């Protein structure tokens, strides 16, 4: 069975790193790759780093989370350039990534994870 992991793309490095810490507490065995900001310390996202982050994951199936719309666009471009199966969720970046990670850790399948994520879907 293919492995499922998590990718988080944020505009801010600290948000990305913080989400990773929050998540790994409840999902120690889940591959969680994060990227935030550009040029070491500026606010923004990029196609290049989104793609690199996807590639860094040991998983072939990835659940992806982002904060603002331009992060999603860069993620989508990255997905077009990747062979991995990546799904982006229009959910809160912290709460959504946390939910998905906690559920993945307990072995819940994708269908049920998505059902729970749908409950916190937002227009963003």
């Amino acid at each position, binding site marked *: 069975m293919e492995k499922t992991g998590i990718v988080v793309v944020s505009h801010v490095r600290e948000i990305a790193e913080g989400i990773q810490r929050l998540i790994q507490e409840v999902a120690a065995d889940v591959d969680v790759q994060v990227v935030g900001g550009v040029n070491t310390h500026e606010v923004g996202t990029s196609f290049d780093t989104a793609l690199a982050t996807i590639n860094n994951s040991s998983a072939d199936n990835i659940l992806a989370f982002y904060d603002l719309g331009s992060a999603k666009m860069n993620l989508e471009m990255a997905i077009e350039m990747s062979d991995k199966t990546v799904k982006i969720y229009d959910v809160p970046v912290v709460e959504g990534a946390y939910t998905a990670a906690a*559920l993945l850790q*307990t072995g819940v399948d994708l269908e049920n994870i998505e059902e*729970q994520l749908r409950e916190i879907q937002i227009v963003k």
Partner: protein
Amino acid sequence: MSMIEKVSKWIELFGEKVTQNKETLNKLDTAIGDGDHGSNLTRGAAAIREKAEETTYDNLSKLFQDVGMTLVSKVGGASGPLYGSAFIEMAKKAKETEDIGEILEAGLNGIQKRGKAEVGEKTMVDEWAPVIDHIKSGSFTDEIIQESLQNTKEMKATKGRASYLGDRSIGHIDPGAQSSAYFFEALLDSGVLDDE
């Protein structure tokens, strides 16, 4: 022993139980949370022990209040505000009565006011509520403590970190209910209820 000595004993025993069972509590909290409930309460217990060593209490209310404030500040995690609010409400009630059933009921109200949980949401409320019912009706035994605790196993969590797991929370005992079971076991062992 005076009532205040017995209640001090009760709290001391509770602290010892959570500390001795730190790994058990952490393990329950690993299954459906972030794995720290035992560590949180052990931290709180140590702080309470320290406070008890430096203070002599001549009234129940002050004792409960100090325990409550200490738990709020030191426990960390959801159980801090929850146990803390329980003791703070118990402190208020203890000014009016020495009836443990009424005092504990005030504590439960504090937990529910703070956490908004009802019975059946797989939380510490599911230990406190049935136990207090039985204390008030004079039918409180260790079996009630254990039965109420076991009943949390098949519940689905709709409050706290466990609620993020949905159906996956089913089949696991709630850690907060387990620590509350220790609380009520300590109550039994302390002799606080012996005159009631």
